[in-house]
């Protein structure tokens, strides 16, 4: 693959809107075994990209831990295949977060030292599967300066995203970020392919003008000057932005077509290996339509739920429509419905928690109730 990858794994505006967690979205557990960033990481490496920079603004410890070894994505190279850039302070650069383009600009030496002609810029908070080679081929066919991956969304939802107007040839005409009244329902997935040297030049020009935002100062500002094209994506794609979307994406994995796409169809999604033993279903357990992670030990009843690794459920407990993350412990005689337990939550014997599908109850990491 003739491209390097940049994954934007969390800026200041990228925390879940409705909880006060320090964890960036990219580090949130998805689908029983994964972290959100695994999907984009695996898309990169499965497409043959073998040099990836993950740029974080708030460098959550969870994300750094997850990426502490590059082995799982086979990016462990002598001179580094996986680079994790956290912001750092120098005399020249005493600023905090100023924008997505600023995040990349601060690590421009990564781009300058590469030889690959193209750069793929993607977000770490999306769940999808793609071969970027197809996009790159399209980019070259169109002789585009920038290619943006897009999707047709429900009109109502479009106002949450960057909305694009494309001409017949799929060249970008207009781009509006979270418009009040979207002109179309064509939404940008925030994934870009661009020539490496062009990106370096744009970033340097921007910085000289004190501009720092990729969408406003590059895509929108240059939409006429550059040849920017849209590449249509049609498969499963979700963006995690809220507790509700975290819940919904996890529940999606109870659908066979979603499981088959990510679990059974080659190429696979790679993640940090956890070395848990097989899941154990004891005598009186009952399990219906559930995902159950390795190392879990089940004694109770579970229905329509996603259980991550090392979950313990006690006897006569009942769990329904819930998401239970790694290492959580549910005692005997509990009742949980429409609940999200973050990692390592302890639910004591006999507790009852009932949320709604629209507003599931969320218990933060390590809570004991």
């Amino acid at each position, binding site marked *: 693959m003739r491209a390097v990858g940049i994954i934007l794994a969390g800026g200041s505006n990228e925390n879940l809107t409705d909880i006060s967690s320090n964890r960036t979205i990219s580090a949130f557990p998805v689908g029983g*075994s994964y972290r959100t960033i695994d999907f984009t990481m695996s898309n990169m490496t499965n497409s043959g990209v073998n040099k990836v920079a993950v740029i974080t603004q708030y460098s959550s410890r969870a994300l750094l831990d997850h990426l502490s070894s590059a082995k799982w994505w086979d990016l462990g190279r002598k001179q580094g295949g996986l680079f994790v850039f956290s912001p750092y302070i120098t005399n020249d650069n005493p600023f905090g977060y100023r924008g997505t383009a600023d995040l990349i600009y601060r690590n421009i030496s990564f781009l300058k030292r590469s030889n690959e002609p193209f750069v793929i810029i993607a977000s770490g908070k999306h769940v999808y599967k793609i071969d970027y080679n197809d996009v790159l081929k399209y980019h070259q066919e169109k002789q585009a300066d920038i290619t943006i991956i897009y999707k047709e969304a429900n009109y109502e939802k479009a106002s949450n995203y960057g909305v694009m107007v494309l001409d017949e040839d799929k060249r970008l005409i207009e781009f509006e970020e979270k418009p009040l009244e979207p002109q179309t329902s064509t939404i940008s997935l925030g994934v870009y392919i661009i020539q490496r040297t062009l990106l370096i030049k744009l970033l340097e020009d921007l910085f000289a003008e004190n501009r720092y935002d990729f969408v406003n100062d590059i895509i929108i500002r240059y939409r006429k000057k550059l040849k920017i094209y849209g590449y249509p994506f049609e498969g499963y794609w979700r963006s995690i932005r809220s507790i509700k979307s975290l819940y919904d994406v996890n529940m999606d994995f109870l659908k066979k077509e979603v499981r088959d796409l990510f679990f059974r169809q080659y190429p696979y*999604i790679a993640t940090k290996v956890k*070395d848990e033993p097989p*899941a*154990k279903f004891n005598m009186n357990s*009952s*399990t*219906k339509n*559930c*995902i159950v992670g390795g190392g879990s030990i089940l004694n109770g009843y579970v229905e329509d739920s996603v259980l991550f690794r090392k979950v313990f459920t006690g006897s006569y407990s009942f769990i329904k429509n819930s998401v239970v993350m790694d290492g959580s412990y549910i005692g005997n005689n509990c009742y949980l419905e429409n609940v999200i337990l973050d990692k390592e939550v302890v639910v004591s014997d006999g507790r009852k928690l009932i949320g709604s599908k629209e507003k599931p109850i969320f218990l933060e990491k390590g809570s004991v109730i």
Partner: protein
Amino acid sequence: MRRREIISMILAGGHGTRLGILTKYIAKPAVTFGGKYRIIDFVLSNCINSDIDTVGVLTQYEPLKLNQHIGIGIPWDLDRKTGGVTILPPYIKEGMGAWYSGTANAIYQNIKFIDAYNPEYVLILSGDHIYKMDYSKMLEYHKQKSADATIAVLEVPLEEAHHFGIMNTGAEDRIVEFEEKPKEPKSNLASMGIYIFNWNKLKQVLIEDNEYNKDSDFGKHIIPRMINNEDKLYAYRFDSYWKDVGTIESYWQANMELIETLPSFNLYEEFWKFYTNLDHQPPQYVGEAADVKRSIMSEGSEVYGNVYSSVLGPGVIIEEGATVRDSIIMAGTIIQEGCVLDRCIVSENCVIGKNVIIGEGENIANIEKPDIYYTGISVIGEQTIIPDNVWIGKNCVVFGTTRLSDYNDRILESGQSLILEGVES
């Protein structure tokens, strides 16, 4: 090269013929165990958990799967710049080739490899056993005793002692005699095939013994020779779970022990993890109409049917309406709708067609290999395909891409074998 205090040599060359079809194309240490593991994972994990970071694995029989599994040692944190895990097959020296002809001969042929690390001690292990052991404690004991060699022993019931290599000990557990499968055992201390030697001493004895025994073996030659030399050999008593899964029945039994509510061999302890090479690790799924009880399921397995008292490997699919009971289903195998399996071992990547029944009928020992298949367990070899609506009895063996025409009226009677050759890959 950095010097090591101790390095470990794992004998993984055994053929494991008593495991029948399970070891037809793979070495015994590479056979899966407990769903997601392979037998050798247990000793490899014991090594790294005991802080031993340099391990040689001696192979010679069908090592491809073992090589692929061990790779460069990443799962066990044994991918090192120096040390780590090294596969050691036989090789040609000065124009002459030599296969490993005995356990000690295999070490003899690798003296140079060991010398390169200049270790003080060498730990000799077998790649065939299932147990948890902190070798650093055994090493401490060995040093305390100022021993030349220390041999781990297990107390077995005296009436079974004649199946084992028995250590007769004197004061302070010093070994005074070794008897291989004695008719009238004088003690019940059975050798576990785990030895710590002072390397200088062992090297000298290996070179000496090679003059007389070209098939030099630890139990038969080296230990007796050392006792004879009045070297200091001590027994190290071990009293926890240890299994040599050498037969179909003991292999099946050891797997079944894992599904107990309180298993005698516990995989779930945080401070002594077992590691394995599993690249793709999606979670397990249990379907709407499924019933799973007293069972363990590995990564990526999916159950839509009924699974009772069974062990499922990674990626296994049990389709709707199928029932699997008291069975071991290995990685990647699919059991289609309506099947009924009872006391079966189905190897990796098989496809069992719809409504197939396996393991019913009379308990007649296998006619060709009655010493291997006689406890009622039917075994299906790897990559086997069984067509729809077939009925297979007890103590049967099936291997290969079988078709309806291979069965007599859709039936394979108890004790029959159906092995199609030449379908290697």
